[in-house]
């Protein structure tokens, strides 16, 4: 008869280790498969059983086990140390230590995800629409609608854990209710991507999140694909708010381990390719950069709405309207536009200047100048937080729009204006030139206030020129969000099929 005490004590797991055992089983199943029947043992015996099944040291395996046991993405230094310890002493020792210090939250499940995992953290958190968030919402909605096995995830506020979306987050990311019902609910889970396809349609400027995305790209043996918007915070840091350039550099360091960056324009591809080439100095090759230009779509606005907006804003006095859409940050170059407009008003031109866009970092000079011009009686309207109907109506109302930004990844206001049939005065380089040239845009050096004033004057006076430009806007290829989402999805799935543009 066996001793009734000793064997029982050695088989029973220490009190409260069930969570750690489950995490270990999840990792073992992901890495080794289910054939071993991980439920036969528990506790230290389970650690031993799993250890003996693991082969040569492999940082990816270290990543999976650490992530599952810690219920967060491990730091790369932890992965490296674990793997080195595995190489020196065998895996059981570090695994036992990781299992021993594992403190899983009760009721929180680890899900090792191997399908398409889309990180929509910022978009899910904010009710407000930047260009990046708009691209994310339009794309992700279509991917969820058209494909199975797409999981939407977001990071916790510390940027340490990936989880499924909450209802609120899902409602902010996925644009229609029918599609929203297709989002797999992953309540109370920690998601660990492994041999997955990790997709980042937005950007990250939170340090821990960037670091962890870098770890996923480097160690999880996943394919990683990002939508690349621009590199402005590091190439034009003089126009970026404090802290942005440093945080953005960490984002780029994460992208260094990605497979593909789908850039939103050729100009943005130029930036990302240059950056990827810089990585050579660190012995890294960087992602393949494939331009997938954003769509050129306008919203249909009925004449009644246009008429209502015209009278509400007092634009029905027969004086032409010049429209400028963009936040008041220095990069949008509104100060130069205001100076050019003042030169035209002094020269006797009559026009309304309507500026649509919110307050932003570094807008003190802008605010002061608008106040001074208003005090001098200039017809300027500042609109912010207005609805889409108003913006699209304004594009229809305006004789022309002005968008002389100093650097843009894409330049949505150029496309929105042209897609509405309204000529645009825009900068003579980069994405703005790419979008506007030959499509109803007049190109100008955005640093040259006299040149802007000259073109503004000519466009206000010369009806025939406006007519010609209006006709040219018809040549702009009207692509849709459906087309766009489809082209990016092809890169998510099978990059080899897409030729570089």
């Amino acid at each position: 008869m066996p001793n009734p005490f000793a064997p029982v004590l050695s088989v029973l797991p220490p009190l409260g280790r069930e969570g750690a055992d489950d995490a270990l089983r999840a990792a073992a199943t992901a890495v080794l498969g289910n054939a071993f029947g991980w439920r036969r043992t528990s506790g230290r015996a389970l650690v031993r059983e799993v250890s003996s099944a693991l082969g040569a040291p492999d940082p990816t395996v270290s990543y999976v086990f650490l992530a599952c046991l810690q219920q967060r993405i491990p730091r790369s230094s932890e992965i490296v140390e674990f793997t080195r310890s595995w190489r020196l002493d065998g895996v059981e020792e570090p695994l036992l230590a990781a299992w021993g210090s594992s403190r899983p939250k009760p009721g929180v499940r680890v899900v090792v995800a191997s399908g398409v995992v889309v990180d929509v953290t910022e978009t899910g958190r904010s009710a407000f629409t930047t260009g990046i968030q708009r691209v994310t919402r339009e794309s992700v909605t279509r991917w969820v609608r058209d494909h199975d096995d797409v999981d939407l995830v977001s990071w916790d506020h510390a940027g340490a854990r990936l989880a499924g979306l909450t209802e609120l987050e899902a409602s902010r990311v996925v644009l229609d209710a029918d599609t929203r019902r297709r989002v797999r609910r992953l309540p109370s889970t920690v998601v660990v991507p492994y041999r997955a396809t990790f997709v980042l349609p937005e950007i990250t400027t939170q340090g821990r999140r960037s670091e962890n995305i870098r770890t996923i790209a480097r160690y999880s043996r996943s394919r990683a694909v990002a939508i690349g918007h621009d590199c402005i915070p590091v190439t034009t840091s003089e126009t970026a708010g404090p802290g942005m350039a440093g945080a953005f550099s960490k984002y780029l360091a994460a992208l260094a381990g990605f497979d593909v960056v789908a850039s939103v324009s050729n100009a943005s591809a130029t930036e990302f390719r240059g950056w990827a080439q810089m990585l050579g100095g660190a012995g890294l090759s960087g992602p393949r950069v494939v331009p997938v230009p954003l769509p050129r779509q306008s919203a249909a606005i009925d004449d009644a709405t246009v008429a209502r907006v015209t009278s509400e804003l007092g634009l029905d006095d027969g004086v032409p309207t010049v429209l400028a859409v963009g936040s008041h940050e220095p990069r949008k170059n509104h100060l130069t536009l205001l100076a050019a407009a003042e030169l035209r008003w002094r020269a006797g031109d009559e026009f309304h200047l309507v500026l649509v866009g919110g307050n932003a970092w570094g807008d003190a000079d802008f605010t002061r100048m608008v106040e001074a011009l208003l005090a001098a009686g200039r017809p300027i309207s500042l609109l912010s937080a207005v609805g889409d109907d108003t913006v699209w109506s304004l594009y229809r109302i305006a004789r022309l729009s002005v968008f002389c930004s100093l650097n843009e990844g894409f330049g949505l206001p150029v496309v929105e204006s042209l897609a509405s049939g309204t000529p645009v005065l825009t900068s003579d380089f980069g994405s703005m030139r790419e979008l506007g040239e030959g499509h109803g845009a007049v190109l100008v050096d955005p640093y040259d206030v006299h040149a802007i004033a000259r073109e503004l004057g000519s466009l206000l006076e010369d009806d025939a020129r406006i007519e010609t430009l209006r006709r040219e806007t018809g040549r702009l290829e009207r692509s849709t969000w459906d087309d766009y989402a489809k082209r990016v999805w092809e890169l998510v799935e099978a990059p080899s099929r897409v030729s570089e543009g």
Partner: protein
Amino acid sequence: MRPETTALHAALRSRVEVVARTLSIALPPAPTAAEALEVVARRVAASADPNEIWLLHVAITGVFPEPDDFGRLRRALVLSTPATAYLSALEGAIEAASQVFASLRSIEVVRDEVLVDVDYCARWEHNTGIQRVVRHTVPEWQGREDRPHRLVAWTEDQTGYTSLTERQLDRVLHWSDRRFPKELDPRATNRDLEQAALLVPWKSTILVTEVPADGVCPELSALAQFSPNRVSIIGYDAIPLVSADTLPDDESERFAHFLSFAKHVDVIAGISGSAADEFRAFASMLPSQGVEPPEIVTVSLATEVSSSARAAVESVVVDPKEPPLIICVGSHEPRKNQEAVLFAAQVLFREGLDFRIVFVGSGSRQNTFRFDAKVSRLQKEGMRVESHRRLGDDDLWSLFARARFSVFVSLHEGFGLPVAESLAFGTPVLTSDFGSLDEVASVGGCVQVDPRDDESIVDAMRRLLVDDELVSGLHGEITEQTPKSWGEYADELWQSAVAPLVRTEAVV
């Protein structure tokens, strides 16, 4: 008028007169400050020439403008009329002038000359990487008739160029042979700043030899964009952007500010082909923002070590019974990859190989704490491993003399001075197989590995420990090398980054 107000008027008048002379603007005889400014402001407003607006800003405020300051003055002048140019000029400069102590400054326009910016080396007692380059290079140009130049530093409030004091010259030109005691300059008072004498480059060539301080990047950016000067810089590396994951955010942030100046310069002289490639790749990003990229040239750093160091190393007698020594020299930070080297050494120790390994390099406590703890643990296991945070030159040279090989498997370098140094001392090196380290290793005497692959480091270190033929082959390669001297570097830098920018046409 109160006496202090009289002084203010006089200082402004004198600055505006300098500008009038520079721009060939005729002033009425014995003008007041207001009369002089009235004439000059009208002329600059009428010309709308950015060069003239830049200079007018310096005259009115006594400081070099940042791009935003420049923009304010330019807008004010654009919207002025001849009759209001005077008012607009004052109003456009009011914000910049209000933020500094500069109202009594004098200015000297430095025209058609070469200015060499050695700001940090002039003001601080600190000598690592970049300062060593500057303090080796700039003295090579002293007293040379074919290298005429002035050394300049920034005022302590970082608002304009000044000439160097005797003590500052000493720090730059006589680092290893000082005439003055090694102590810092007293802090400037507001009164000192208020009365500084600025050097204002005009149609000159400026060589910025250091990575400029964060605070002067906006001024330098405006100078490169709007003044009629040509600017060259030495491009050390793009580590804070490319390898941002290994550094704190604020270093990457500062580097981005530096890039917003660097993109407007005329020439960037990369310290290695790899550093030049990084800046060339950065330059290729610029057409997207309509900026004409700088010209990128490669001027590789010198690889020589001082003759006294060489002599010291050569005089060491090595006891053949000592176990083989491995040294790993370089500041201690994640990018330098010392952890991987320690791990490899641990593997080889477990395999039973007999050797001693010494790490040398300072580092923050955050970076060194765990490493040093691990070193003590391994010492207790009987492994011959040491980590020194501070080591005198003599001790370091003695280590180089005794070492069988050195290890420098950094993940990213602008040049790889430790590799060049080791080779100059006759010690073979294990280093990385890409970037600047690949370049500096290409002369021979090195074994190269992928520094991100632990196993390849282990294998290479094992071979270097056990394979005598390999090591003697490397020694043979080293014997044939002639290190590049600082004189050669200084010549090449002048020829590539200064001479082409010096205006040769007659001054109008």
